[in-house]
């Protein structure tokens, strides 16, 4: 029967009574994915970027025809704000489960302690949950429904220096021998460098020539950076976590002529590539600075990056957005494979999944999860600030730009 206007009118008139119920019975109205993210408080910017990534994924999934295995059912994203504490995170997770009884799975909640609290709830309810947080604690609890797409903190600490050395070698053809460390004494850099000092650096044929730890806030970066200049390391791990300290150390580096990549300096973590940092510190100071993260805008996803910029107005896609974009696609693939919105079936589908397409959103490894929920082969990206934009420079095959590295 061809659809004409008359037919349509008739159809509408005849079916007003039965339409809604019968239509709903034939296909699931919607599939609900969840995102819990810090939308208020100190981590609000990262939370917002996470949300933008997830929203874009859901829009793309629906544009591409929704969940085909369920007759093209549309995906709806339910968002919860986990604020600034584990308590609020737990509340947000309970609320999301109460408001969305049909929730299939979800992702969040950026800060590792919030993720711990959220997953305590989702695990008990049997909701498959994805996270970009690094903490080892997340996947060491013997949980069955939690999946970590980033390398864990331990794995990162182990992989970071070899990754960096591989980049140095690729850029200059020589091995880097002398390592410098400048850091504050907060938890993240302390755990990151612990292994290096305890023989990790030597095992890689590196010598730590300068090792400076300060208690934030730093009042004057002069003495610290002078010692760095005197020691002449080949590579500097520059690990302050507070923005004012990052600014001070970078200013001093530029002042004494080590900026703009003359001394390769590298930080750890996605926040080092945030648009906010650019606004505070400025493109000139950041030029040449590198950072290690779990994923970044990679070669082969230029169209996605461009689309993200167009839709959100953000200058580039960050790890927060990209990871959650991928999380939604993983959930979608699992629902397709399960052919159901039943959480147990979806979770079982995740456990056997090995999806080469979605794996492209990450620098290495597969979208396949081991017993504990780690993504198999998860590895690292090195991005570098070049002309006011952080661009991926490693791994080489996924890099979008050549690294600025002296001696090239």
């Amino acid at each position: 029967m061809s659809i004409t206007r008359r037919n349509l009118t008739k159809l509408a008139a005849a079916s007003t009574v039965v339409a809604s119920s019968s239509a709903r019975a034939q296909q699931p109205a919607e599939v609900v994915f969840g995102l819990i993210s810090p939308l208020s408080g100190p981590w609000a910017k990262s939370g917002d970027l996470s949300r933008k990534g997830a929203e874009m994924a859901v829009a793309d999934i629906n544009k591409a025809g929704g969940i085909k295995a369920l007759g093209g059912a549309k995906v709806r994203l339910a968002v919860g704000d986990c604020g600034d504490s584990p308590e609020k995170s737990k509340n947000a997770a309970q609320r999301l489960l109460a408001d969305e009884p049909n929730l299939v799975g979800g992702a969040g909640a950026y800060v590792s302690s919030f993720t711990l609290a959220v997953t305590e709830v989702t695990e008990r309810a049997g909701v498959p949950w994805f996270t970009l947080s690094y903490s080892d604690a997340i996947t060491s609890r013997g949980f069955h429904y939690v999946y970590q797409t980033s390398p864990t903190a331990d794995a990162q600490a182990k992989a970071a220096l070899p990754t960096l050395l591989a980049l140095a070698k690729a850029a200059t053809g020589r091995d880097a021998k002398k390592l410098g460390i400048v850091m504050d004494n907060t938890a993240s850099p302390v755990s990151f460098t612990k292994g290096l000092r305890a023989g990790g650096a030597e095992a890689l044929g590196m010598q730590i020539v300068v090792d400076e730890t300060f208690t934030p806030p730093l009042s004057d970066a002069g003495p610290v950076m002078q010692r760095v200049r005197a020691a002449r390391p080949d590579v500097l791990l520059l690990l302050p976590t507070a923005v004012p300290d990052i600014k001070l150390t970078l200013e001093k580096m530029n002042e004494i002529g080590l900026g703009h990549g003359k001394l390769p300096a590298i930080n750890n973590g996605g926040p080092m590539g945030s648009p906010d940092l650019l606004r505070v510190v400025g493109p000139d100071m950041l030029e040449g600075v590198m950072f290690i993260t779990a994923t970044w805008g990679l070669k082969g996803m230029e169209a996605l990056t461009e689309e993200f910029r167009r839709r959100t107005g953000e200058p580039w896609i960050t790890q927060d957005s990209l990871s959650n974009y991928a999380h939604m696609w993983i959930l979608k693939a699992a629902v397709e494979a399960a052919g159901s919105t039943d959480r147990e079936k979806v979770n079982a589908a995740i456990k056997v999944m090995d999806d080469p397409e979605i794996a492209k959103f990450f620098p290495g490894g597969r979208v396949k999860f081991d017993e504990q929920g780690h993504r198999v082969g998860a590895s690292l990206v090195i991005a570098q600030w070049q002309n006011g934009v952080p661009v991926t420079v490693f791994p080489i095959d996924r890099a979008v730009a050549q690294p600025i590295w002296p001696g090239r």
Partner: protein
Amino acid sequence: MRPDRNIGRTVALLGLLAISWLGLAGSVSSPYYLLLLALVPIWALLGVSWNVFSGYSGLISFGHAAFFGLGAYCVMIGLIRFQLTPWFGIPLAGVLGAVAGAAIGWPTFRLRGNYFALAMLAYPLMLAYLFGWLGYQELSVPLHREAALWFMQFADTRVYVLIAVVLLLVGLLVSLAIERSRFGLCLAAMKQNELAAEAAGIDTRMWKLRAMMLSGSIAAIAGGLYAVVVLVVTPGSVFGLVVSAQAMILVLFGGAGTLWGPLIGAAVLVPLGETLQAQLGSLLPGIQGVLYGCVVILVILAAPEGIYWKLLDRTRRSDDVRIALPVPLPPVARVAVATGPVLLDVAGLGKSFGGVAAVQDLSFSIRSQEILGIIGPNGAGKTTLFNMLCGVVVPTAGEIQFDGDNITGLPTNRVARVGIGRTFQVVRAFARMSVLENVVVGAFVHHPDDNDAWRAAADALEMVGLTPYARTLAGRLTNRELRLMELARALAGGPRLLLLDEPLAGLGANDAEELIAVLRRLPATGMTIAIIEHTMPAMLGLVDRFIVLDQGRLLAHGAPSEVMRSREVIEAYLGRNWEVVDAAA
């Protein structure tokens, strides 16, 4: 006589509230609402803890997160490191909290007022860094799929509500016991005026320490249960400024210094904050904090002392009946009493503040059952002398003998206990307490048994003619009645020597006469009085003997008639020119 007639009613009301809360939990099945139903009593318990210390004693603590966090970490580390069940971990947290209360309180009580509050701020900050440094950045409760009950991991989260309500109930009963006992009255007295409390014989440091230990223990228990319910502990989430502030805001919002304050605060603010977070958090991130702040500000503006007191004032205003005017005691002439042996002997007493000698080489004595007037121009050193006699100020020279014992340099509350009572130049009433409660604080010194103390307080009220006002709030008294009440407080302790610092200040002639009538009767009861006063005519008819101070030295002493004619005295008071007038008269 003690005002605990409605304690049964209060307990019954608490029980009813607890049962309805549990009933609510029984009828709800959403884990989200059950979580809220468990978090409200936990935060209320932290509020109770803060109230036990700061609400009753008035020493503001910005640092209750220290205890809360220690409790949370105690339970968490116990679970992770030692497989210790929270059933033991939470009581252990209570013990740890009390120890921490003593360890924090002992050095910090040296500071007063704002300095104390600020110092308290430092402890949770310090502990947050310490636990971070120890590597406890984030701890989560290990999931125990077997032996779940032993590890307090209930599939039915209603049990958490039950535990939280039971612990809160215990906290409230402790709080109630404090409010209705010597403990609470002593704390309340310290809150209004620490010096007056010391002068009434209360060992303020001791009571503060007890309050801090009890409060720390309750806060740590709340923290321990919080860890079990929220499952994740980070230094920021349990030692954070927000936690200390939460404790304070809940109580100030509901009403400090009352059992109901933390309950009202937690029952309103915790769900409000969470609802705002839930409804607005994802729409307009951050707006929930702004609205929450606005609500708190509005309520504080409308009811600065908290909702409870505001409601109480509303209901009391209607039935505020002044029972009857007290019958003015008939003026009596001084009942002649033969003065006895020397009670207080002061020899060579001196006090210098830096280079300024407030009192120098002062020697005099007071005989038993005597009324001694101490006069002198402003700055003569009268109040400094009083302060030395009752231990507020330590003399730099000389010795004070009381009934043959050397009491020089004893702390104020000890001086009060040997039998020296005092009143202050400015009346220090405990405004929120009834007249009888105000007075009983003074009676505790000499009456270890509470019933005796209430009886002594009633007797003291009788003596000053304030019996009809026994149940009126002190805040509603006139100046004259306040003076009488303060006198009664001093009398209730049964002092042998009473030091009165300008008891007639600010009173009209008639009112003064009434007070003097009361004072005149006292020596007959065996009491000795030293009185500082400026109102000369009143003094002339009252005292047996004057000593006159000028610039810290003893200028003259003797019977009123002699002293008033003394040239030096007139000169000191009025200047040289008056001499002539006097001579002419």
